[in-house]
């Protein structure tokens, strides 16, 4: 775990040695993870990696075969009831009631959370506004778009102001605009201090939203860290220099004596493992007389990381 955060913030979720098998199939093979309060933690992996199983265990739906876990300070096995009181769960498939209107769905959650009538009415209308569902309030979800259903689902989860929210693939199947809206909603929740455990198949989503990412493959955590840490661990970081003409490109290539050149685009790519220091070094060696049109620093994206640690591109592994 990150030494910097573990001393200064409290732990929302702590998991050690989590294992789960269904028959012969090992779904989780010794999972350890720690989630700090107030952060977004992303479980990233292809279908069948075990993401949903982790969420099901931590949200008290199923029992692990081995391992211990605490959620907001409560022991998952011995204090499951207390855990349920502080978490909110939005599963992979929108669990909205199709025969009730949007507002009735929220009020139903309010009743089940034992909120007083006035509180649940106020909270429901606040959430309808905030999630852009006002016109859906008096209509049943049969007519909703996919994005609206998902928003209602998350609004239902928020009726009880949970301190820890599990979002299992919140944007799978959504169009790009609905995805953007969902991302903004998640960022707003984080701003309020809510802790979020998110699962996703999308590297971009984890990169955009998460403070910490655990990459999951076949029941193992294969890499963990901040998005930047994960990217930095990867080979492939480079400085990209673009020149005005071939003469400058030639001269730079001679001065630096490394990297790969692309004569078509007048671009030179120089491996950059040392961050700022090697950048300064490159610029110093180029001197003042080489005209650099454009300079950019490239870090590998999470696709590269996933490919490197699993040997598989995530989207090719649908099963």
């Amino acid at each position: 775990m990150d030494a910097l955060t573990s001393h200064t913030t409290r732990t929302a979720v702590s998991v050690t040695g989590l294992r789960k098998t269904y028959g012969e199939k090992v779904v989780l093979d010794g999972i350890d993870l720690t989630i700090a309060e107030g952060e977004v933690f992303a479980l990233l992996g292809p279908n069948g990696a075990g993401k949903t199983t982790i969420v099901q265990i931590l949200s008290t739906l199923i029992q692990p075969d081995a391992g211990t876990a605490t959620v907001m300070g409560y022991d998952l096995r011995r204090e499951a009831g207390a855990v349920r009181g502080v978490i909110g769960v939005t599963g992979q498939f929108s669990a909205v009631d199709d025969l009730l209107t949007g507002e009735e769905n929220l009020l139903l959650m309010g009743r089940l959370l034992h909120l007083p009538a006035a509180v649940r009415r106020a909270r429901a209308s606040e959430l309808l506004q905030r999630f852009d569902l006002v016109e859906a309030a008096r209509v049943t979800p049969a007519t909703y778009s996919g994005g609206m259903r998902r928003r209602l689902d998350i609004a239902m989860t928020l009726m009880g102001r949970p301190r820890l929210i599990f979002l299992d693939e919140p944007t799978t199947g959504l169009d790009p605009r609905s995805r953007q809206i969902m991302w903004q909603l998640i960022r707003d929740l984080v701003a309020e201090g809510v802790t979020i455990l998110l699962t996703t198949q999308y590297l971009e989503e984890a990169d955009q939203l998460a403070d910490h990412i655990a990459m999951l493959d076949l029941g193992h955590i294969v890499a963990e860290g901040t998005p930047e840490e994960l990217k930095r661990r990867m080979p492939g970081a480079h400085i990209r220099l673009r020149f005005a003409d071939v003469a400058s490109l030639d001269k730079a290539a001679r001065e630096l004596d490394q990297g790969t050149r692309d004569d078509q685009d007048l671009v030179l790519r120089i491996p950059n493992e040392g961050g700022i220091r090697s950048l300064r070094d490159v610029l110093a060696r180029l001197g003042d007389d080489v005209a650099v049109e454009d300079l950019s620093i490239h870090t590998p994206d999470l696709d590269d990381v996933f490919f490197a640690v699993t040997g598989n591109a995530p989207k090719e592994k649908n099963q």
Partner: protein
Amino acid sequence: MSALTIAAQDSATMLWREIKHSIRLLRLLIVSAILVPVVMLLLFDYILGGTIGRGLGDAARGAPYVDYLVAGILVMTVAGGCGPTAINVTMDMTGGFIDRIRTMAVSRDALLAGHVGVSVLRMLVATAAVTAVAFLVGFRPKASVADWFAVVGIVAAFSLAMAWLSAAIGLVTKSVAGANGSTLPLSFLLPFLSSTFVPADSMPAGVRWFAANQPFTAVVDSLRALLTGAPVGNTPYVALAWCAAITLVSYLWAQAAFRRGSR
């Protein structure tokens, strides 16, 4: 709040939800719960009743066939409520609602209490409506006030048993179509293989023993005896014992299935 207060409050919430559902599906329910048994009543009384009635002999006790038939139609009406109940429960399971509330601090029994409670309510309303139609087509029971109380009690007990059984079936069925199919033996097969339309001892040897001893026959026989003023013997006790047994087994089965969740 004590656990009991929460359980009562949550059950009331789930009852409210199921009543809303029933109101939203009212037209569908009227067709499946009332119209289908009424059609069966009319078919068997008007179309087939002449011949069947003459063939009954002593079993008819000299009354028209409709008086013999109604007890069985009431049992069929109750059993016809199994399909919608199982379907509603299956939809909650496959749609994720059950998993949702299993992650909440909601009383474990509340959801099924709501389904079963409203299911029984629907079955009782439907049997009352079908009884009213029976009166219109010439049903003339000879039951005393005490007999009527016994009739209502047995119908309610049978409804409770069928509601729990269909809730359990709904919990273990993977699809809505499957839920409907799994309850067809209850709503169609068992009524025909009982004394609903003709006495069990008039049936071929192979099914006679089964028809004579299965729970639907016990319920039909007790209701028929009470309604037609025939000697009831121990039939009400046999019927109630069957209902209690089915309720208990189904309740335990449903509890286990609910705890397992959607996996």
